[in-house]
């Protein structure tokens, strides 16, 4: 197939119908298929097999929603925040003697009366939000795409009128947007009962720096999206996954507005139904293909990852990044070294309650003053280096009022996001320097436990009221504190010893890009260890334990994690003796400082 019978980009549904027709003629039977894919996915996958084709598809966000047209192809990049279960729809129906399909659309193409024969199929509903804590640089600028897109549609003279209509529509949606940004969340808050928790948070974060943790979806430019998934195994997409969905946009403000069906007695039911569906103002995306996003995908336009092949490259970038980090940390070389290892950590295995690969860092000897200098600088630096960062001020008030853990609101039948509902790989800064002695109430105790549990086991408890569910979460946690934090017991504790305050460096965009790419690449490297070195490691660990009996398994485990990070920071996939010794040396220096 292929051919110009349809345009995948502007008329994806045409493509769907076309291939449906093809499939029918080659023996596809809608009556027994249960709506299984008839080749649409392959068609689109083929069409979008390379990155450049994908980049043609506009990304749906709060700015592009104003100009993208319904029933065209869009991309949505976000985190799966909630799963709304399955939806049954009339997938195929007989129009006369020919089958028609409603797959990938909300409405039927031929809105005639009930057809004599319909097939009910199912699809999954995912409620997605932009990734919480996502940083500026991860966003694609869609301005050029917009122009291109408008050009594209402009070529079709006949569509002119539609574009105009779209313009007015977009104005509509502008006004709608105020409601849109918060709408589902406002609703939740209202039903929350203890709404003070999330609301009182807003003024409080005022004295904290701008980037302070806000509930993920209340930031101004967040656009949620209801994604409808077809033909994808359930295990494929999990809660909190960061995914790019490519599919047909249906965004019709009129949809769902007309809720009064005939007959009074259906009302209460549809009411019950509608609460669980997000408001009609949330755009719908009928997903054709999707892929999980890695940091690399956000590094648009750069093909650096291929250049990062040689060890020399790794070394160079590592050096420049280390220089940058050391500068930021007032020439504290050890701190910079540990910070780099920390930034490369990720959970790569779980055995029981042990999350292997986590490496949280606690920088001590920081107070309010030094925080305002180093903390802020570091925070900004991390924001420019990592895709998702958040910072949480650990104050009594915050802990007592914030809603960190996600909660299920059965009033709306939705999962109310908490600050700790985050995508894997999110970096969290916990600032304990502001913490004063005081009493934690039950919320505070719960929040402290959540944070501690996240730190120790990399798990967050989601509150489903009648029971709790632990979700594995992979977060890098950096703690600033005055003394060693016993509330947040980190893997590595290091007294921070800056020797000078360096002026803020200006980073060239290319350099920043290279660093991001470096961090992302290193993080994704696989890692192993040779047989001989394994023996060396074992011997060293035994020796370490023989000399210092206070070393527990956690300490030994940490050493190995550090070794792994050290190794990947040089772009190597097998541990070398040199790197192992570097780690031991680093650990020795750290221990020395602790004395």
């Amino acid at each position: 197939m292929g051919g110009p019978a349809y345009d995948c980009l502007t008329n994806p549904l045409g493509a769907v119908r076309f291939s449906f027709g093809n499939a029918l003629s080659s023996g596809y039977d809608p009556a027994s298929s249960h709506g299984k894919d008839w080749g649409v996915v392959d068609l689109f996958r083929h069409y979008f097999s390379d990155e450049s084709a994908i980049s043609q598809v506009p990304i749906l966000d709060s700015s592009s929603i104003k100009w993208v047209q319904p029933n065209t192809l869009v991309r949505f990049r976000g985190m799966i925040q909630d799963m709304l279960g399955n939806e049954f729809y009339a997938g195929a129906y007989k129009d006369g003697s020919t089958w028609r399909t409603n797959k990938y659309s909300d409405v039927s193409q031929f809105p005639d009366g009930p057809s004599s024969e319909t097939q009910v199929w199912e699809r999954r509903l995912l409620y997605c939000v932009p990734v919480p804590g996502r940083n500026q640089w991860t966003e694609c600028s869609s301005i050029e795409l917009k122009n291109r897109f408008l050009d594209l549609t402009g070529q079709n003279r006949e569509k002119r009128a539609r574009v105009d209509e779209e313009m007015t529509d977009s104005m509509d949606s502008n006004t709608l947007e105020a409601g849109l940004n918060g709408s589902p969340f406002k609703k939740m808050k209202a039903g929350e009962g203890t709404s003070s928790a999330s609301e009182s948070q807003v003024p409080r974060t005022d004295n904290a720096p701008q980037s302070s943790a806000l509930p993920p979806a209340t930031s101004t430019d967040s656009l949620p999206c209801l994604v409808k998934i077809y033909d994808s195994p359930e295990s494929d997409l999990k809660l909190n996954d960061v995914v790019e969905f490519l599919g047909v946009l249906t965004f019709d403000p009129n949809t769902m507005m007309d809720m009064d069906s005939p007959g009074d007695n259906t009302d209460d039911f549809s009411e019950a139904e509608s609460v669980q569906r997000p408001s009609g103002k949330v755009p719908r995306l009928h997903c054709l293909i999707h892929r999980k996003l890695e940091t690399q995908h956000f590094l648009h336009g750069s093909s650096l990852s291929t250049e990062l092949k040689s060890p020399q490259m790794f070394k160079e970038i590592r050096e420049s990044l280390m220089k940058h980090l050391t500068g930021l940390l007032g020439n504290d070389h050890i701190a910079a070294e540990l910070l780099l290892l920390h930034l490369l950590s990720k959970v790569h295995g779980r055995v029981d309650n042990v999350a292997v690969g986590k490496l949280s860092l606690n920088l001590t000897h920081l107070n309010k003053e030094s925080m305002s200098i180093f903390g802020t600088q570091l925070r900004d630096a991390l924001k420019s280096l990592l895709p998702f960062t958040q910072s949480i001020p650990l104050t009594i008030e915050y802990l007592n009022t914030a809603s960190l853990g996600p909660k299920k609101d059965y009033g709306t039948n939705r999962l109310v996001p908490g600050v700790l509902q985050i995508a894997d790989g999110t970096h969290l800064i916990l600032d304990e320097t502001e913490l004063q002695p005081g009493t934690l109430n039950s919320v505070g105790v719960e929040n402290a436990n959540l944070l501690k549990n996240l730190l120790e086991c990399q798990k967050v408890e989601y509150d489903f009221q009648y029971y709790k569910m632990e979700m594995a979460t992979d977060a890098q946690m950096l703690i600033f504190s005055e003394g060693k934090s016993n509330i947040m017991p980190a893997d590595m504790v290091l007294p921070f010893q800056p020797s000078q305050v360096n002026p803020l460096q200006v980073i060239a965009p290319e350099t920043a890009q290279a660093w991001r790419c470096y961090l992302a690449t290193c993080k994704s490297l696989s890692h192993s260890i040779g047989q001989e070195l394994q023996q060396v490691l074992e011997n060293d660990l035994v020796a370490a334990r023989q000399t210092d009996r206070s070393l527990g398994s956690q300490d030994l485990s940490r050493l190995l994690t550090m070794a792994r990070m050290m190794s990947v920071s040089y772009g190597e996939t097998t541990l070398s003796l040199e790197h192992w010794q570097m780690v031991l040396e680093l650990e020795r220096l750290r221990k020395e400082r602790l004395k």
Partner: protein
Amino acid sequence: MASDSPPANTNDGPSSPGENASSPIGNTYSSPSSLRSRRRARSSTPSQFATPPPPSRLGVPNSTPPTSRPSAARSNRPATPSHTDEPPPSSDDGGEDGADDATPTFVWGTNISVQDVKSAIEMFVKHFREAKESSDDLFREGKYMASIRKVIEIEGEWIDVDAYDVFDYDPDLYNKMVRYPLEVLAIFDIVLMDIVSSIDRLFEKHVQVRIFNLRSSTSMRNLNPSDIEKMISLKGMIIRSSSIIPEIREAVFRCLVCGYFSDPIIVDRGKISEPPTCLKQECLAKNSMTLVHNRCRFADKQIVRLQETPDEIPEGGTPHTVSLLLHDKLVDNGKPGDRIEVTGIYRAMTVRVGPAHRTVKSTYIDCLHIKKASKTRMAAEDPMDVDNSLRRVDEDVELDEEKLKKFEELSKQPDIYEKLARSLAPNIWELDDVKKGLLCQLFGGNALNLASGANFRGDINILLVGDPGTSKSQLLQYIHKLSPRGIYTSGRGSSAVGLTAYVAKDPETGETVLESGALVLSDRGICCIDEFDKMSDSARSMLHEVCYSLLLSIAQIIACSFQADEHCCSAQVMEQQTVSIAKAGIIASLNARTSVLACANPSGSRYNPRLSVIENIHLPPTLLSRFDLIYLILDKPDEQTDRRLAKHIVALHFENAESAQEEALDITTLTSYVSYARKNIHPKLSDEAAEELTRGYVELRKAGKFAGSSKKVITATPRQIESLIRLSEALARMRFSEWVEKHDVEEAFRLLRVAMQQSATDHATGTIDMDLINTGVSASERMRRDILVSSIRDITLEKMQIGGSAMRLSELLEELKKHGGNINTEIHLHDVRKAVGTLASEGFLVTEGDRIKRI
């Protein structure tokens, strides 16, 4: 059942004898039906939601004579779920009344003959007997006839029918019922009505059938479009229920012009057709009819949302929900939080998305039957009864058959005890006996309340004492993870009461500590206290106070429910399981039925084997003696262990981590196994076991009277007996055995001995000395130490000069042995060393390696 309806035989007599022969007939009826032609076309997909089948089944007109003959009743059938029929079924109903036996009617789109189904149901209702009813009951009426009578007696409205019974009697009927529930149930209702009216002609209510206990239940997640219109059963938890909605069933209209009241108009396909004109011939005014609310008939309706139970949620998913529609008596049958098993018909209705587009279906379950998951809460006094506490995520999940079977199988395995022990904290090696002890704690013993008011706890308390870095805390945390009701707290600081905690900051270092003093623990959990010895550090100045405040703080931690108990117990939390706290003039007795798992570090940085447990951890003996098992976990600098640890950690990081775990139960299985056992297994002592217990105890006591000892050493106290019983009960529980066997007791003795040997062994005599626990120093040890020291002093004085030549310890030992006399047991070199140490600390002599010098 027979007593319920004694007149049964007279009434039903004739039909009963033929029962045995008739059961196969039910089957044969349906088979020839496939040959017959299909006559009636019925759509079985209702597109309207408003009137689902159960209410419309009710909608069989009242005007039907109660004595409805089968044929008459069947003619009512179209008024049943067929309200959405495309071609009105009544149209070809015409000749049917007369020809009811000759030409069969079929369920639309199938070859299921209505007559066949009907007679099969009749057979079933009239003749089904439970298998356990013996053959001499042949003349008694069947199970369901009895319940029909009962319903008539109490003027009930429904009959519960166990789907298993249907299957047992007629699998074919069962299959039809599950596949075409709307039609079959409608027929079922009609059959019931017929039978009811044949028994009591004046019975006016409509009796409905409620099917429950389907053979297979689905999970919410697996519902798919092919289940629509099928009978399904699933489990879940109610998360929300609507208010009760009145739904109109019969409407009465009145003419505004002439005041004529119409006959009740029955809801049809979710709609009431308002008469366009007055029905009175004299009036016939147009658009004059108005609804008279208080003469209409309404039925209750409720919409409930059901969420799947946590164990069905796959990793990385959120729970699914489904709507339930409840009618009439089912309304308010469950409240949010209840776990239910629902049987119903899965249905879909069209949601209006836009003005003209109807593609989305919303689904719901039309409930036929709701069964609440049994929460058999026995007397609240028994700590074991509600012990669902060991479930991690959820407390009352009913174990399904499959799981149960798996557990049964597991429990039958000969090495289940070892296996369970292996599964416990597989990341921590060795400490096998400690793990076994912990396992006993998890399973627990039986609590006993005597009529006299004395009660014996069933909980097992364990104390782990040991060197830092011996994964005590990890063990504690692991147990805590297993036991959600339990709490984990660190002994460091316990000030605030209630759910709060205090953030303290060290003014010098700026270290922050969360003093989570008194977290509330619900009863019957395991209370894990880390750094037990650090508890109420400040109050250590007075031993008494320490003891009291320590108990008090435990009490605060443990206590959860106030009990209006007049008698004021002493603060013996762990023994009496209640505690009284005098606060603000109110003496409250709190329930504290908790197992305590505590761990303590030695007061020195390392455990000093020369000192007793009590000296090592500075805990009051009164408290220490409450622990059933005290384990010493000493970190012997053993390269072998270290190597294993190193190997394991390296493997954890660089190899497939899973391989590290050999054949062990995963944590969820373990928890549910434990909770099932705690809930359902209550072992008793067998005679043999009791005998062994007595024998062993006596032996243990005897061990104290070693030859020549001037003072009797207490090797066992009655407290140990209790511990032993608890331990052996727990051991029996692990095997799901209702009887404590001899080997359980033996193992309990072994466990106790191992624990005591570590903590209460008198190093001098090698025997267990409870004085070590009770007073801190063994009786013999005190004596012996004194003798030895004085002997050495004597020898030294005799043989050595101040500043003179040194003497080897071995020589000293020889001398001592020669000296003999007043030392009745064998002396070892290490004893000598110890004694020499004491003398050295007195400044009497100095040691140089293996030699001593007198100063």
